[in-house]
């Protein structure tokens, strides 16, 4: 079974990664809007399976790196090679 995340943690992630976002309950779902986009089909549950969270993050155009900082392992993102950090520092 897929791992799930408390909705309260998702709100914390949204506040940090999608400033100005809004959400409201419709009859069947939570409707989350940001960046001129709307995700209509978010589950109205206390704990949300990560497949729904991934889909919402991608569809709204939220930074995956930012989302991962608040919800660890939400996405498999390869770390940049160490050489890149050295290059950036010069």
């Amino acid at each position: 079974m897929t791992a799930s995340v408390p909705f309260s943690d998702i709100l914390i992630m949204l506040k940090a990664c999608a400033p100005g976002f809004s959400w409201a309950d419709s009859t069947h779902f939570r409707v989350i809007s940001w960046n001129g986009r709307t995700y209509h089909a978010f589950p109205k549950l206390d704990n949300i399976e990560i497949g729904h969270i991934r889909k919402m993050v991608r569809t709204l155009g939220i930074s995956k790196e930012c989302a991962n900082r608040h919800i660890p392992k939400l996405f498999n993102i390869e770390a940049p090679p160490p050489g890149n950090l050295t290059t950036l520092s010069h």
Partner: protein
Amino acid sequence: MVIENLCPVCGYEMEEPPRDYNICPSCGTEFGVHDVNASISELRAAWMQSGPRWWSKTDTQPDNWNPLAQLATLDARKSMAHYPLMFTLWDAVSGNAFLAGVTLTGRALMVKESENDWWIYGVRPAAIAETGSTPEEACLRFHNRYKKVLFDISEESSDYEVFKKSVEDFYFQPDVEEETRWEDARKALRGAEVIPEKPFSELPKESPESRPPQIAVARLDKLKRFQSSDNVPDTFVMATAA
């Protein structure tokens, strides 16, 4: 290598596809007989307990036959379980003084996240995902979730025109990454890098050009007449090469 001919039990490349009473010479599974009352994993476990050893007495064992290597190859291919689906759904939606018919021809990616955990991710429409313990359950729940989105949009729409515009906005909202994953999955199938398992191996296959993504919202309560040719069955097919 003819992927369609690989035995799902042991991974051996048979001369004919694993169906219609064909027998795999490597593990001895007779398809249509042994796999009716036993699962693939049960048949595989039984074969593994035999050694595993070459089953056929008439077909000679290949010189370089390596049962564990062929099984590892099979498992590696099956672990890439991403299936590019295309579908057509029709739904009637009541709203504020209107009745609308919505015909959706869409795209979705079915992914086996783990055993008994299937996810279907919308590509067009993109802003939707659903899960199930089987692909069939995921598809059914996906349609139900999509229908409820239409119902919610209908509730929020003051009239038909607002509803139509909102449904089209929902449909055309993109997820570029999902589109790329869908296209990659289609190429993998075309290149025979993935073995479709049931029920995908039994789905009709169509080229994407034959079923272009589109959504049509029509006002039904203004129609002067209805006819049986207007009916649209729910359809799921697998996308293949053009």
